[in-house]
Structures are given as C-alpha cells and as structure tokens.
C-alpha cells in the first residue's frame, strides 16, 4: 500500500498545525462561529445532534494494522470506545470534543492518516472495490489509479470550491462492487481490443434527492490520459455547475440538464486544450513510483499449523455458513479474501469497539499480511488469507464477536447513523436495521432467503444508498413523527437500477412487518434459485404491492 514521502508528511504536519491554531483562535473568541465553521468542515469536523463528529479518510478503503490500532486508541482516548465505518469506506467518531480534535489529527498524522477533504465542496475520498488487487475477476488493480487521483485532487487549488461535493469511484472488475454508476465520476479499468489498459468513464451518477444512473461519457480513455480527462470534466463542472441552489448543484444535474452529448462536447474541447498545454497527465516515472507501492505481496507469511479445513467445513455448521457467505475468490491460488461482518445480529451496522479493533489488528498481522480493507457496505475485509488458516481465523474472529456469517444476506444491512446521531436526519435508521436483523436472526432462514441487500437512510440525502437497495427504506418526517417509505428493485452493481416506491409509507411500528411481507412474498413466488432482485425484475412491483396494501 502507499506510504507517505517526506512531502506528504510535511503538508500534513502543516495542516494539523494550522487547524490547531484555528481551534485555539475559535475558543479564544478571535474567530467567529461563521468564520470557523467552513474551516472545521474542511478538516472533516461536523457538529451533529449530540456532539461533534470527525470523519477520517481511509483512501480507497485500504489501511494497515498499525493504523487500525491508532483508530482504536483514538476511540478509547478521545471518544466513547468505538468507531463507525461509513458507506464511503471512512471511519467516523461520534463524540469527540472540539478541543481534542487537533490532538486527534496529530495522532492520525503519525500513522499517515487525516480528515482532509472528508467534507466540503471538494473532491472527496476516492472509493473502490474492497477486493481491489486480489479479486479473481479484475482486469487490473484499481488502487494505484485511486492513489494517483488522490494525490492530484488533494489540495488541488482549482477544485477547492466546487459548486458541490464531488465523489469518484473506480473498479478494476466488470462486476461492480464500487457502485461506479452512482458517483459523480465512475471509472472502470478495462482493456481495449489491442490489450492496452484504459478506462470507461461514467459521469453524472448520484443518489440523494435526485437519484441518477451515470452516463458513459467515454467508452475508452487511454490510461495515460486519466488526469487530464478528469481535469476537463471538473473544469466544465466548476464553470457551469449551479451555485444558486445546493439541491441542483451536483454534476448529475448539469449533465441531466445539458444532456450527455452536449456535456461531452464541452469536456472533449476542454480536454484537447489541456493536452495542448501539456502539463496535467502524470509523467511515466511518477506513475511508476506510485505503482511500486501496489506490487503484489510475496505471500510468504507463516502459515500456521493447519486445522483440518474439510473436517471443519463438514461438521461445523456455523463455520460452513461463514465460509459460504463471507469468503471470496482470490487471484492467488490457495488464498481467499474474507469479509469480516460488522453486522452482528441485532447490532449497529458499521460499529466496532476499540478492543475489537485492537484484536483485529493483531489478527491482520497473523492472517492477512497486516492489511485490512473497509467496504462501502460497512464491513471489513482481510484480503490475504491462506485457506489453511481459515478455521483458526474463524475461531479467533468468533471469540471477538466478528464472525457473523451474513455477508450479502438479509441482516447485512447498510444503515446511516440516522436521527440517533445525524443533525440532518428525519428518522432513525439504526433501530430499524436492528429490528430486521433480530427478526431474521435464524441463519437457516437467512440462507434460504439468499442474497438480499437492504439499505436504510434516515433522510433524502441517502447516505445509506436506499435508492439502490434491493429493498430500500427512506425515513421521512411526518408532522414531527417518523415515517418510512419502502422501495424495491434498486441495484448498485453493473446492472444499475433505482428502486421504486411501493406506495404509502409506514410508521415505525409497521415498517419491519412490511419488509417481512415483501420477503415472504418473494419466497412464495420465486422460481428456482432466483435471488430477490431476479424475482423482482421478472415480476415487477405488483405482487409485492398487492401483498403490502391489500
């Protein structure tokens, strides 16, 4: 993974010193709240319902055991002993004191981490496939490109005050695990007919109050032109994106209003001009330096005395369930990527305690070459696990309550913090997720239901991606009380689809029952091994609507 050079360390040191001074001046009254607010947001510090919240960037969801230990330390020393992994592969702390945040940033800087550009109208953390670099189905590892974009976009002076926030996702595989069609820019690494690497470029996707599936702006962009083309898109957006109405300021609105063809013409013209100027694309030598950080590991860690995998798989039902749901194909023989579910039955999606983080860091050193990934579905991944180590790893994870065998199943729910924490939310998300999780706690039932992605947002900003849940739930305010809209048929992968609302909403006491009805209906009408989304695509909304409202 990428390691900071002297320049990276220097700019981070300067930035944290600058913010420490800003906090001191605010506390002393030398800065007003109006002056200070944008400064704290630029450093990832929000004021939420009960306290401040700091969002820490995890570039493309990759971090090491030392960084995880630091997350644990920060949670214990400055917060309430836990952290929350978000739907953008970051980690948030819900209870820090403003006066402690400069110290938190110093602690983060000591392990090459920060909170810069995790808020504000700038280019945010670049996200990618959690299996990047190890996925058997990928064309190429997308992380070096994500790192190139990260370096280009960090403190980019031209793009520090965009009309609105800007999110970029990249996948190296045809099967999209990064939801690239729902980002401001989505990139798919691919090869052209002559085998050369490049990108399919998608623009103008997004969720929020106006969900839009992104449009292809360029079917094939040669690899070497990545930055110049991104710069061209950002320039057109920066110049033409709306600044008069924040709800119409995202690039998706610009693309929608101008049409993809017109937008493409402008971008191509700008791109040609940038290339004539000839100073944006990364020189080959610099690119090589970055790629060197992402060379495949030696895979020479000490495989522990092996427990008998076959015996475990045959006789230990819980282990079998965990293997069947939480294991993923690896490009290296005898290795696997393992999802570590942060969705214990009845738990809070994405939350993890300091103790669990520390234990997990130790396990990552033993079983995963010290590396961990965070996923946009609020889970973690060990990317380098030898198959002989799986029984031992499972036993260790089980001992710290992190071996829930539910990846991709009914209780693997994405939920935003909702009204329990978020000042923007209209309704609670987490208690709904917990109730669904408890209702479907029987692992046999969950296995029968099969792949099902439930996503619950507490407001229209859609942080939990409810529009693209197979079952989506949107919390709304109905005269001061919580109400929930139910959506069906959304899909975040390469077969992107936006869910449709079933009909009138449900109150807090009804929504989980409504979801049960939807699942029961699916079980009654599914054919063969159809997944929920397959059945929905075959039969449409009507059978579900009939069951819900008759």
């Amino acid at each position, binding site marked *: 993974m990428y390691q900071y050079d002297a320049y990276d360390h220097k700019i981070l040191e300067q930035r944290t010193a600058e913010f420490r001074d800003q906090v001191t001046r605010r506390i002393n009254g030398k800065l007003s*709240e109006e002056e200070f607010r944008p400064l704290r947001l630029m450093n990832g510090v929000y*004021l939420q319902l009960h*306290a401040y919240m700091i969002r820490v960037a995890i570039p493309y969801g990759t971090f090491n055991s030392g960084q995880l230990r630091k997350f644990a330390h920060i949670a214990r020393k400055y917060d309430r002993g836990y952290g929350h992994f978000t739907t953008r592969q970051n980690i948030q702390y819900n209870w820090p*004191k*403003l006066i402690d945040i400069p110290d938190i940033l110093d602690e983060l800087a000591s392990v090459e981490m920060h909170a810069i550009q995790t808020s504000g109208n700038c280019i945010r953390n670049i996200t990618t496939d959690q299996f990047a670099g190890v996925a058997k189905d990928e064309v190429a590892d997308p992380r070096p490109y994500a790192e190139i974009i990260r370096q280009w976009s960090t403190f980019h002076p031209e793009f520090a005050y965009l009309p609105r926030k800007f999110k970029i996702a990249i996948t190296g595989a045809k099967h999209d695990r990064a939801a690239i069609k729902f980002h401001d820019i989505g990139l798919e690494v691919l090869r052209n007919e002559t085998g050369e690497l490049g990108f399919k470029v998608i623009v103008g996707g997004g969720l929020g109050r106006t969900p839009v599936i992104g449009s292809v702006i360029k079917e094939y962009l040669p690899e070497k032109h990545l930055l110049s083309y991104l710069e061209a898109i950002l320039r057109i957006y920066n110049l033409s994106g709306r600044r008069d109405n924040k709800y119409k300021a995202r690039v998706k609105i610009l693309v929608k209003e101008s049409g993809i063809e017109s937008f493409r013409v402008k971008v191509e013209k700008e791109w040609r001009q940038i290339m004539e100027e000839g100073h944006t694309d990364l020189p080959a030598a610099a690119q090589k330096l970055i790629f060197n950080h992402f060379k495949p590991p030696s895979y020479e860690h000490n495989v522990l005395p092996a427990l008998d995998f076959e015996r475990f798989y045959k006789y230990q039902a819980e282990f079998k369930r965990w293997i069947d749901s939480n294991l993923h194909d690896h490009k290296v023989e005898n290795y696997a990527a393992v999802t570590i579910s942060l969705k214990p039955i009845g*738990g809070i999606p994405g939350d993890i305690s300091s103790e669990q983080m520390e234990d997990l860091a130790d396990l990552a050193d033993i079983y995963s070459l010290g590396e961990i990934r965070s996923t946009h579905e609020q889970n973690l991944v060990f990317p380098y696990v030898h198959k002989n180590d799986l029984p031992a790893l499972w036993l260790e994870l089980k001992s710290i309550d992190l071996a829930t065998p539910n990846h991709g199943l009914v209780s693997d729910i994405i939920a935003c913090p909702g009204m329990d924490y978020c000042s923007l939310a209209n309704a609670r998300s987490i208690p*709904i997720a917990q109730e669904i999780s408890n209702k479907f706690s029987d692992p046999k039932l969950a296995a029968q239901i099969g792949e099902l992605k439930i996503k619950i947002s507490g407001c229209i900003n859609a942080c939990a991606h409810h529009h693209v849940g197979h079952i989506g739930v949107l919390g709304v305010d109905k005269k001061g009380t919580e109400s929930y809209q139910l959506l069906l048929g959304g899909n975040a992968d390469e077969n992107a689809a936006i869910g449709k609302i079933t009909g009138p909403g449900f109150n807090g006491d009804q929504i989980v029952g409504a979801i049960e009805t939807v699942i029961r209906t699916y079980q009654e009408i599914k054919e063969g091994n159809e997944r929920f989304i397959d059945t929905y695509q075959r039969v449409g909304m009507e059978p579900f609507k009939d069951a819900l409202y008759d």
Partner: protein
Amino acid sequence: MTKAANINNALRVIAANNLSDGVVVYFTGTKWSKNLQFALVSADEAELLSAAQNSVSGENIIGLEPVTVEIQGKTITPTAMREKIRALGPTINFSGSDNRTGTYSNVSI
C-alpha cells in the same frame, strides 16, 4: 416569561451546543444547563431567543434554536422525536465488544 408550572400551548425552550465539546445545552434564564428539565419555557419565542442570545456572550455557546415542548406534569418533553433524542441521547447504545443492542430505550420505536 414564566416558569414551567404556569404555561400552556406553543411552548418553547432554547437549545444550543457547547462550543468546546458540542454537548447539547438548554437556556435556563440565566445560564445554560445540560438538563432539559432546568430549561426556561416560554410561549414568547422571540423574547426567549433574545434573552438566550444576550446570555451567550463569553459563554462559548453556539447553534441556538427554539424547540417546541410540552409540559406533562412537571416534566418538559419536546414534541418532535428529533428533539426528544437530542435531549435524551441516542435510542441505541453501542455496548462495547459484544456489539449487542443496548437497553437504553427511553424513546421506543
């Protein structure tokens, strides 16, 4: 303005946050308290807000906003769920390493 015992409809308190730690506080009439039950309640929102704003100077209090409440017996209760949660804390509780649902259920779903 009157204290809680003598008031009736469309009642308000003023909520805000401590600058240094972000904690939610309520205007008591002279200072700021973390306890909603010590809040000054009034039907005159403008006057209440003005008094609260005047008390902020040097107090490092930010984000003042009126909150609609009801008086039930001697208890001040916000009418909106959001403000109930703000006053009582999250309705869920991350309870450490076993990550199970907590018992803190002041606001039932």
